[in-house]
């Protein structure tokens, strides 16, 4: 099975899984406009490769490995969409299909260069979040500085999530802050430095500011800024 097809399948399952909890064969078939019989065939082969867990009639879920591939593709896809709309000024309705074809062919270098050029966008033109890259950096400034020198980075092997995904009263440590240097400095002046333990107290309704507790003080932070504060979520067993 060609790589491109594998990636398309994983992407579809990723979307369906985050919507319904698991990806049913019929749903996949409908999404990809393919006969259910051939979907079943492919799912079996993806399962053999260790990308999905598949049980007939109950649907498929991604394994960690499958999630990683799908996540990378999603990131490339959405970065490309931003590039196509913002830089090439293509119509927003058209960019999805275009990006769908391009996402399988661009390299990691291109992905990084796009991210730098577009100033590490947080959302695609349709509003879906763009996940952070998996490089072991603490802020975008490092990547910007090293970009020209062609330096390579250690791969960040820990899972990080935006602070906005934390449940109230859950704790985590700041791993990466995406975005503008001035904002990063402001946040660190107020105590949000890398490695600091923070928790979310409240999220204001309708995408309003997020109330963050840090060093026994409380900060209200704009939702869009908070989405760029990434943390290592608590491991199970930790409070």
């Amino acid at each position, binding site marked *: 099975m060609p790589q491109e097809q594998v990636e398309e399948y994983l992407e579809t399952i990723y979307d369906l899984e985050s919507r319904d909890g698991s990806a049913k064969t019929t749903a996949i078939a409908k999404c990809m406009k393919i006969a259910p019989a051939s979907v079943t065939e492919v799912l079996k082969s993806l399962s053999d490769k260790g990308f999905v867990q598949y049980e007939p009639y109950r649907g498929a879920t991604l394994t960690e490995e499958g999630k990683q591939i799908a996540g990378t593709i999603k990131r490339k896809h959405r970065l490309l969409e931003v590039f196509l709309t913002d830089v090439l000024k293509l119509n927003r309705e058209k960019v999805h299909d275009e990006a769908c074809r391009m996402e399988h062919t661009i390299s990691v270098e291109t992905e990084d260069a796009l991210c730098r050029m577009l100033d590490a966008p947080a959302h695609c033109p349709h509003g879906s979040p763009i996940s952070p890259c998996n490089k*072991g*950096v*603490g*802020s975008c*400034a*490092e990547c910007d*500085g*090293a970009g020209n020198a062609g330096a390579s980075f250690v791969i960040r092997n820990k899972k990080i999530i935006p602070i906005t995904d934390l449940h109230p009263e859950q704790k985590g440590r700041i791993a990466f802050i995406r975005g503008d*240097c*001035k*904002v*990063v*400095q*402001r*946040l*660190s*002046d*107020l*105590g949000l*430095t*890398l*490695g*600091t333990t923070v928790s979310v107290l*409240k999220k*204001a*309704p*309708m*995408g*309003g*500011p997020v*109330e963050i507790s840090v*060093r*026994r*003080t*409380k*900060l*209200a*932070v*704009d*939702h*869009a*800024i908070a989405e760029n504060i990434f943390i290592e979520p608590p491991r199970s067993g930790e409070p």
Partner: protein
Amino acid sequence: MSGCGECKGCSTSGDSKIKNVDYTIALAGNANVGKSVIFNQLTGVDQIIGNWPGKTVERAEGLLLHKGKRIRVIDLPGIYSFSTYSMEELVSRDFIALEHPDAVINVIDASALERNLFFTIQLLELAPPLMIAVNQIDLAEKKGITIDTQKFSALLGVPVVQTVAIRGKGIPVLTDAITGLMQDHLVPPVLYYGKEIEERIGKILSLLDTVTTQYPVRWTAIKLLERDPAIVQLIRVQEPAIVEKAGLLAGEIESIHGEPVCVVMSAERYQIADRIAAEVMTIRPPGEGPVKKSLTDRLDEVALHPVFGYLGVIAVICGLLVWTFLIGAQVSGFLQAFLSHFEQYEPVVTGPLMDILWNGAFTGFVAGVTLVIPYVLPFYLLLAVLEDSGYLTRISVMLDRGMHKLGLHGKAIIPLILGYGCNVPAIYSCRIMETPKQKTLAAFLVTLVPCTARTVVILGLVAAFVNIWWALALYAFDILLIIVVGRIAFKAVPGESVGLIMEMADYHVPSASVVLKQTWTRTKSLIWIVFPAYIIGSAIIQAFYAAGLLTPVNNLLSPVTVLWLGLPAVIGITLIFGIVRKELTILTLAVIFHTTNFASIMSPVQLIVLALVSMLYIPCISVILVLASEFGWKKALSISVAEIVMAISIGGIAFRILSLAM
């Protein structure tokens, strides 16, 4: 001193209004630590609030008399860092470094020791004679936090006292400690960073022999390493090679840590702060059973609730306005009756010129008194109570999302609410916005908010002679217009917008002295700007009126007033008078028609259109003056012209639609 090109601009001693002082001390610290309360405790009521020379940053100074010495106390703005994020930070660090105050008192909040210490560490780098006042220890104790003052003092090498400023506790000890510090002029010890940072600071230090600045040399080295734009600029003029070398060293740190050097330095400072805090602070572990929620948490459950929160915001703002106007109308009527005993306050247009001018000036004065004291003062007093209690920050959080649509964020709600009192202080308060674009946008939208004078016009024309619902409809239309115009201006005005990053202080019972001071700060600008503009403007207009220019002006304006807006021709002159003060529109109308029953001279449609146009066209002379002083004449005039055009266009359209409907 040679080599400091910046000193002229930042010299403050020459501009001080308090003369013949023996010492100067400064209060520095984060926002919301009770710094203003300590300032009020030290200086009493005798204080001056002005601007830093040449900068639009507030400067409060007062006089402390202690043991026969006259001590000037400067209240520096509440800031979190000495970077260059805001003008407040620049002004504060320049004051401490260049004005050499005899003592700096760092007020810190006992409940948030680490973040406060982060700032203390930066203060220590500036090396003024320093002491620390650990404030709000009572609140900290309630949270189970106790602080070992002696150990604290020993660790930092500076005097430390504990205070509960709001109840005056610890103030005498503080005053004695200040006296000691001023005489000894002890320079605080140096705090050291990690090895890789210190090595590089050392390298820069060794290069700095060849340059002269008024800043402490170690601080200059640290700031060069941090790539601080202002200091880099200062040194580059003298010795570009040093800047280059410092840049390389900063690059080394960045490649070690993989973060911008300023962020590395922040993290380093927080490490020191965490270490000191852990040494001096004991936190009593929470007792058995479920953790009791604090009062603030419980209040926030309602104040930030998706439904009750918004209901609360609406109720509080509406309550504020309704209360003000119900009380205000009573008091205003009483004051007018009282003042009419002295002089006729209705415009006089015949007789000797001096009489006319005097009458004009007096009516201007009466107008100022009957608007400010009954309406603006109670409004700002209540608002200051809300602000000091901490509720205003919750309103900002709740409305943040909506303000985004206007290119602003939640904090901008404060100037907009202030605007309902008077636009002048509201425009000053736009300084709380971070970027020039956001300041301009906020000020522009403030000018569209109907102030008390405009409310008097709306109530006097529409609520009194049409009905209250049309008056409320005008208000609702105004809010809608602010949203639409805000959207357009957001797209049209160049520049960047930043999102909200704001501390959420705990609720507390408002302090009378802070509330009164805040109210005075805001009302004061009315006395210096609005009163003179009212008095002089009214006298000039009276003379203008008496000189018989009425008819020619009305004729000149009649294509707009009569043909387009469908109003009587005499409205031309009343609209021009309204530029001086909006409520003059009504007064002039009454004089011209010899009646206060406006329903007998204008139809309901005409009354509504007149109120609408009055509400929207350029605010008034005072507002134009303030806009010009804050943003320059170009912006002040473009805003004025844009609003005249908008008001006339909307008025004409409204006339046509309303004529069909009514």
